[in-house]
């Protein structure tokens, strides 16, 4: 197969995670190519809710990962120099509709406080209403944390794409990966596409929902399944909810963004009226004003959901040069995925704890099968 391009690192997937990784690598002087079978933001990056969510994440290491990622957002956005509608610093709110919710929330906050950096707290109903006048009066209270934020995920993804291109990253769009080429000792030597071969000694699987298929090219079963989340957008309304919440947020221009569903339907991006109704029932209970609005857009994204909900993040030990960066809350974690993978590739290690995220944890023997040189299907 003809070699059409040569780089140090080939990143598979031009979503927010892949582009963030490419961006961090480029900043550290590495020669990077990003491959996507379509173009930037063709998958979940442009079909998610746009939260940078921290305070309800569990288990604790995952919470800390999210917290650390949140801290990276303002700097990255400033570097990229574009308005991506990031609202960071004022925090986010999670509503408690009942007293039982309040008790659970209190316990969650206790768990999170194991992190000395955590500044979240429990709010009474009146405190919630002071922050979010648009919320229903029938709530019991809520939790607030300054670490939560929100962003326009479409603008974020394309700002990353532009930032990458400005730093010399090559973006090969309409280029589908059909195989991963391995050389001596199963070390990565390149990526195969219908247009030809891309030579690279490091390959990063950031293919989101499709990462399972990419991992199989090196004989690894990730343990990943798509989980559909439907979302609704309303028309513009007067601003009464300036802070993002776990299920709903009012965007800076006044449109409400309402979520969501958790559906096990495979690779099905279609939306349903039943899903819309479910989302709206929850929305009007929390935000009465929504009842008087109209829906202008409905769409669905697929969450790349690992079996235990935790990311697949790190090297694949038996395939030297191959890394994986996939998982749910790709939006929140996109900055830190960039840092971690670039640390691993450039320095050989990272200061961020990633022991819980071994890509091989569901298939420890997988990569060992088959032995020597192997080309993908």
């Amino acid at each position, binding site marked *: 197969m003809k070699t059409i391009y040569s780089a140090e690192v080939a990143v598979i997937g031009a979503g927010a995670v892949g582009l963030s990784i490419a961006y961090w690598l480029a900043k550290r002087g590495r020669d990077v190519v990003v491959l996507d079978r379509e173009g930037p933001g063709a998958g979940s990056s442009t079909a998610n809710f746009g939260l940078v969510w921290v305070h309800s994440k569990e288990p604790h290491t995952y919470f800390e990962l999210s917290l650390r990622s949140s801290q990276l957002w303002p700097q990255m956005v400033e570097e990229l120099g574009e*308005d991506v509608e990031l609202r960071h610093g004022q925090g986010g709110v999670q509503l408690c509709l009942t007293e039982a919710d309040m008790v659970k929330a209190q316990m969650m906050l206790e768990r999170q406080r194991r992190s000395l950096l955590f500044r979240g707290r429990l709010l009474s109903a009146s405190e919630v209403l002071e922050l979010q006048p648009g919320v229903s009066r029938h709530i019991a209270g809520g939790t607030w944390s300054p670490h939560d934020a929100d962003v326009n995920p479409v603008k974020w993804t394309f700002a990353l794409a532009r930032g990458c291109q400005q730093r010399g990253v090559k973006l090969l769009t309409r280029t589908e990966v059909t195989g991963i080429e391995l050389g001596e000792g199963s070390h990565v030597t390149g990526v195969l596409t219908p247009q030809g071969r891309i030579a690279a000694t490091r390959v990063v699987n950031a293919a989101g929902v499709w990462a399972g298929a990419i991992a199989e090219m090196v004989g690894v079963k990730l343990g990943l399944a798509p989980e559909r989340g439907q979302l609704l957008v309303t*028309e513009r*309304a*007067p601003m009464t909810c300036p802070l993002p919440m776990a299920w709903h947020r009012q965007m800076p221009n*006044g449109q409400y963004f309402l979520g969501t569903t958790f559906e096990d339907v495979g690779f099905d991006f279609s939306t349903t009226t039943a899903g819309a109704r479910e989302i709206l029932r929850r929305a009007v209970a929390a935000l009465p004003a929504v009842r*008087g*609005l109209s829906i202008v857009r409905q769409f669905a994204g697929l969450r790349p959901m690992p079996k235990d909900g935790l990311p697949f993040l790190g090297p694949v030990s038996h395939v030297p040069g191959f890394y994986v960066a996939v998982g749910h809350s790709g939006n929140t974690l996109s900055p830190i995925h960039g840092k971690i993978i670039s640390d691993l590739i450039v320095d050989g290690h990272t200061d961020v704890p990633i022991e819980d995220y071994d890509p091989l944890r569901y298939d420890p023997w997988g990569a060992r099968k088959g032995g020597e040189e192997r080309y993908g299907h």
Partner: protein
Amino acid sequence: MRIGEEKLRPSIRRGREIWISVDGSPLPAYEGETIAAALLAAGELTLRHTDKGGQPRGVFCGVGLCHECRVTVNGVPNVRACLTPVAPGMVVERPAPVRRRGS
């Protein structure tokens, strides 16, 4: 301005005269007319201003497709004036132009 009832064929009779309020001021209208018609008859062309540029906008397509003619009616925002018939006592508000945030 309203066209005389006999001017065009067929001649018509408008509905009865009623009063609506627009930005707090009373405006006469005729039952059967749309809010857009009543406002245009009174020479009120500008209905809102855009988010980013603060540009004035008014009725454009007249059939409810362009969404330019949005006004607040009886407290409900984003009502299309070209599709909505007037009713006695209807309260119509045109949101004041908002200063652009930052850039």
